[in-house]
């Protein structure tokens, strides 16, 4: 049984204009455990900024953002970083550190935030790699991996450690054919265990197979975050 306390709450939050790429308006959003919110946003910069807002990385002029009932604005290090460790993210830019092998890149959040045995982390990562059609944990440098393998590895890293909140920036946009089945299966599992999910997309049609599990469809544009009703696209 999922405990229904608010996972993420954006309460009349207006980001500082100078510090963010978000439109200058107030944002409101509530994500409960097990929720899946699909946000249509054409601009990758804006979507990254909104994901940053959810992660407490953007200073606010007014309002507050709560994650697990903790106000991002009032948290100090090291609790701030520890809480961010409970978020799984797929970013558009700068996901991989070239100086580390891919295995370290994938395991990095868990190696940093937990004291779990390396063997346990590796076996969990290995299972996720198999789920996403990777032959194992890649050990090459990110430079040497193909873009589809990087997308698969990004999914593995985001789901690793069963995070409470998943923030995905255009996870299926270029690889819907290869990734949609394993990705949606994992998404469903995450929803069932009570994780909150926010996905940014440019193409709503990608989500047609998952629409029954989506709790809210939204739009992020110049006017801010708006509810776009239900998904109604002929597929």
């Amino acid at each position, binding site marked *: 049984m999922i405990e229904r306390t608010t996972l993420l709450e954006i309460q009349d939050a207006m980001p500082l204009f100078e510090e963010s790429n978000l439109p200058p308006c107030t944002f409101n959003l509530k994500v409960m455990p097990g929720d899946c919110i699909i946000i249509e946003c054409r601009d990758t910069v804006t979507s990254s900024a909104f994901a940053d807002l959810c992660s407490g990385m953007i200073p606010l002029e007014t309002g507050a953002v709560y994650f697990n009932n903790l106000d991002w604005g009032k948290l100090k290090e090291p609790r701030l970083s520890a809480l961010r*460790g409970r978020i799984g993210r797929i970013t558009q830019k*700068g996901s991989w*550190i070239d100086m580390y092998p891919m295995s370290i890149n994938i395991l990095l959040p868990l190696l940093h935030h937990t004291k779990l045995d390396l063997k346990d982390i590796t076996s969990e990562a290995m299972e996720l790699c198999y789920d996403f059609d990777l032959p194992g944990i890649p050990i090459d440098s990110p430079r040497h991996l193909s873009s589809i393998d990087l997308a698969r590895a990004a999914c593995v890293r985001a789901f690793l450690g069963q995070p409470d909140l998943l923030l995905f920036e255009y996870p299926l946009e270029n690889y819907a054919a290869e990734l949609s089945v394993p990705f949606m299966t994992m998404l469903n599992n995450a929803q069932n265990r009570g994780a909150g999910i926010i996905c940014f997309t440019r193409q709503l049609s990608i989500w047609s197979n998952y629409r029954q599990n989506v709790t809210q469809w939204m739009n992020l544009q110049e006017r801010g975050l708006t509810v776009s009703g239900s998904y109604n696209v002929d597929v």
Partner: protein
Amino acid sequence: MINSSNNKNLTSDRNDKTFNKTELNDQNVISSTQVQEAVKNPDKFVELVNRQEAELNQNYLSWRLKQADKASFPFFKKMEIIVVWSFLSFIHFIGKSVRSYCGFLLDVLGASYGVIIESFFLYNWRRTTRYEFVRILGQSLGGGLFSTVFTASLTGLAVVSQAVYWLGLTGLSKMTAPILVTVILRELSPIFVGMILLGRNGILSVAECSLLATGGQLRTYNSIGIDPFVTIVLPRAWAFTVSSFALGMIFGTVSLFTGYLVTFILGSIKTSIWSFYSDILFSMAAWDYVTIPLKFLISGFLIGIGSCITGMNAKEYDDPSTLLPKGFTRGIMLIMVVNVLFTLDF
């Protein structure tokens, strides 16, 4: 009673005496397209604003020169305005350059304080930090070992053998050990080791950190709750410190050994290697045992921090051709500052 035409005159007169910025702002207004571009590229926007401010200042100068026509001695008034204006620009130029260098030194001092304080907290030494520490230590020690041994051998060949030979000729053989301690151990080795460390690993750090900064990886680090200062700057600073000390000790030992070997083969020295080393050790003052290792430790530490800061402060428009020379000159400056400070005091 003042009529309306008088009123108008008064207003225009007042406007003449004050610089009407709004008029100029209308000319220099930033368009909405530029604002939208600014959202995507803040650095470009800052550049645009700076350019427009400069234009505004230029307009202000011409306005003041026009105002000077109404003064009693317009020529002298204009000269005064131009001299003061040029002087202000000169002061601005000096201030900008000084602030840039002082800013870097203050950044290094601040980051050094941060690294030392954060190192005391056990939770900062997580697996990721330890991994980076071991990786950089291996890179700097393993990579710098051959260069250090080679440079030390050449130094021994050139300095030690020459010192022993010429001092022997002039009958000052007893001065050999103190001179070698001063020249090689105290002065040359920290500079050479610092330069090897800087060239071999410091510049690599500048490149790596700049790629992290410009590629958006530092932001990703933050977004997954990993503090780049703790996982990159802190371990690198300590790894550079340890390897600087280790390479320094290797440098001293190898250079003295090579020098001894050459002079022994040439017949300029007859004593055993142990008594040669013993002479060197006895000629060292008690302070040398503190200052020489300290020089290695501090310069290694500062090279680590300076390289990381230079790299992490890289902007999107920075490229290796500007960044790497900047990293190198800053590193050399730090090495020299440490050496000069210690030489002044001791």
